[in-house]
């Protein structure tokens, strides 16, 4: 199915097509119930085939039964770009260098509004865009080692992570943070405690059961 009708099928899809409306169309929908004005949103893939989702001017979403639609007037188009604003991480020579090594997990994900699932999101720019006060603490660099959920971490990833830690220490960073899924974080921590001994810099593992875009 084309992106112009993302998530729509059956009755709802044919109603949209009948009136030349697409996802992101700015429309006025006339129904047996009355009129609704807003933007056609993509429909969740798990939802039924009988309703069209509109974002009203007030910001609320409503579903309108395709069957009750009498006319749709397309007035324009407003496409949404869901993206954390990427900003370049500022450098302050007075602050310590900290490296964030990403392995995956919920802590490095954000919500996908269409499916309701969390999807990976991780770059220094994105992190700075969403947590700007990080710049008050350190000069942050990030490196994405892996993008796996923690149940998929194994010997290969443990070795790779330990080697990455070694490289960073040699480069002179003053602290290392490892983002990790919570399910097996304690396994990785235990393994790393054997692999990396007498580290001259603190190494912290972090995880969360909430994606970072929850308020």
């Amino acid at each position, binding site marked *: 199915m084309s992106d112009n009708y993302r998530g729509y099928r059956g009755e709802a899809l044919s109603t949209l097509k009948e009136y030349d409306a697409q996802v992101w169309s700015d429309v006025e929908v006339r129904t047996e119930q009355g*009129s609704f004005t807003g933007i056609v949103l993509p429909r969740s893939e798990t939802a039924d085939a009988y*309703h069209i989702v509109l974002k009203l*001017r*007030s910001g609320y979403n*409503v579903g309108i039964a395709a069957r009750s639609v009498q006319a749709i007037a397309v007035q324009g188009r407003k496409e949404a*770009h869901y993206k954390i604003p990427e900003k370049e991480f500022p450098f302050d020579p007075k602050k310590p260098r900290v490296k964030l090594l990403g392995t995956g997990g919920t802590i490095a994900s954000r919500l996908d509004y269409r499916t309701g699932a969390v999807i990976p999101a991780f770059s220094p720019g994105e992190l700075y865009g969403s947590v700007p006060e990080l710049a008050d603490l350190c000069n942050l660099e990030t490196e994405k080692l892996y993008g796996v959920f923690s149940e998929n971490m194994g010997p290969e990833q443990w070795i790779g992570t330990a080697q990455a830690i070694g490289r960073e220490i040699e480069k002179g960073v003053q602290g290392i943070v490892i983002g990790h899924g919570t399910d097996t974080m304690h396994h990785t921590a235990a393994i790393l405690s054997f692999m990396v001994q007498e580290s001259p810099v603190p190494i912290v593992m972090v995880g969360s059961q909430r994606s970072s875009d929850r308020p």
Partner: protein
Amino acid sequence: MPTKPFSEMTGNDYAALGFKSGLEIHQQLLTSKKLFCRCPAARYSDHFDAEILRHMRPTLSELGEYDGTALMEFKTKKEIIYQIQRDTVCTYEMDDTPPFELNGEALDIALGIGMLYGCSMVDEIHIARKQYLDGSIPTGFQRTTIVGVNGSIPFRDRSIAIVQLGLEEDACREVSDVGHRRTYLTDRLGMPLIETVTAPDMLTPQEVAEVAEILRRLVRSTGKVRTGGGAARQDVNVSITGGTRIEIKGVPRIPDIPLLTYNEAMRQRNLLRLKDELHRRGITRDSFEARTELVTKLLRKTRFEPIRNAVADGLVVHGVLLRGFQGLLRWQTQTDTFFSREISDRVRVVACLTTLPNIIHSDSPSETLPSSEWRTLRKSMGATDDDTLVAVWGSPQDAALGASEIALRAQEATSGIPSETRQALRDGTNGFERILPGPDRMYPDTDLPPLRITEERLERLRVDIPPPYWERERWYCDIGVPEDLVAPLSTSPYADLFARAVREWNITPSVVAETLVQFPKRIRKKIGGRVGFTEETMREILLAIREKSLAREGILPSLLAVAQGSRFVRHDLPAPCSSDELKSIAGRCSADLQAIRLHSPAKARRKLMGLVMGHVRGRIPGRLVAQYLGLNTPEAGQ
């Protein structure tokens, strides 16, 4: 047009201003459980078992934008404390468990009220998250949904449009807000409420109050909403020609609305005049100039106590120069309120400098710094006689943020009126609360799937929708309900029972109205506190009246007994008093009366009536007793 005091304003004056106002009314629904979990609703207590600390962060909407309010709240860096009680809060409210299914009882009530407004009902409900970063909701968002749009209610010779009807969860109750710490009680959190949003169709402050009253009574007439303190809260939107939509939040009482909206209209008018004055002085958004400087050292030994103490405590002082603003911080905005308060409010809310005064300025006639110190400051900051200086003090971060807010708010004056939500104050004026949020603070709730509203469900609910209360009132007048009972009865939860008692059980309307409205009120007055009578009790009493096993005189004593804890059982009532029994009781009483010497025969007859009624009250109508005794009493007339 000159500024007129509130009492002298006419409809024409408001028309000349281009006054427009709309309402957003929040009304709690009468359900036993909360909206998204199974905790009990409306169990209030100041007691708590534990406290939880949270910080809030803004979230992008699914359109990829941040909301202005969310960013402002984030700037304040508040620590939020939640006081939680075992019996009223579960892990849902604390965002540690996903929501349960939407409370069907609450949804039914909301759908019913939507139909009462004649709304276009939504076919499929989508729960949204509305960001609230002030901490009033621990999740950082409120779950909310629209059930209907485009309704209307009749008002005078026109109609007022209902833009939308929402169903949402209530927020926490604020306990305190000092510095960087805000504390909330969580018992009210999550209770279901509806939000009715009208179009800006009201054209004078008085109309706003009238429409608020109509809406309040209309939803009450369903008998399915909560009443009492805090159960209904009004937000009032006000704008004038050239102004901006300003939302005054949390107006607790409808009679407060007219003065509040008047003051807001005046504030907007005066801020527009201030803008014109700034432009006349050549100050626009682009040419605006402000300078900030750390002036702690210069004021170390000041005689002005708040600053001297602050410096002694290691805090810092920032001076802010507003180029060309001379005299303008004394520009009147509301009744006895000046532009300086717009600035002070911002500093208080955004920089968390909550101890007042939090700023001083060189336009102030009141004693702050001695003039020699103002001169020193002026010299140091390069200020001319045309400029105004403002000083703000606090921790280095707070004072710096305060200084930048001062410059920001002053710059906004060059454009007119910033979009804000403002809080209603007791004296009828309003103060800054936060930047007005926009649609960007809404994003979909991915925890709950869309919910289809079937036609069958609407049909089932449509049957129970009461007629509008004004139609009930017309009928009550026609059938002779006492005048003072018409209004309370029309929005009483017993209104349906009244109709049944009159239509099906053929009981005299005035007796039913007294039973349902007047007697409970009298009892509440007598024994104090909130006394409720279940519909079941009322039904039993009315049926007893129909069966003539309870006479009119017995109603009040029966209700009083129920209020004092006993149960009313229709079948346990003593049998009605027969004429033989009345004869024998009257005979006995008459004999008793012989013992007392009463000279006036009229007095003696009244005394006899009293004695007999003492034996038969409630079992036989008083007028029959009077008739038997040959008396002309008030009861005999009925």
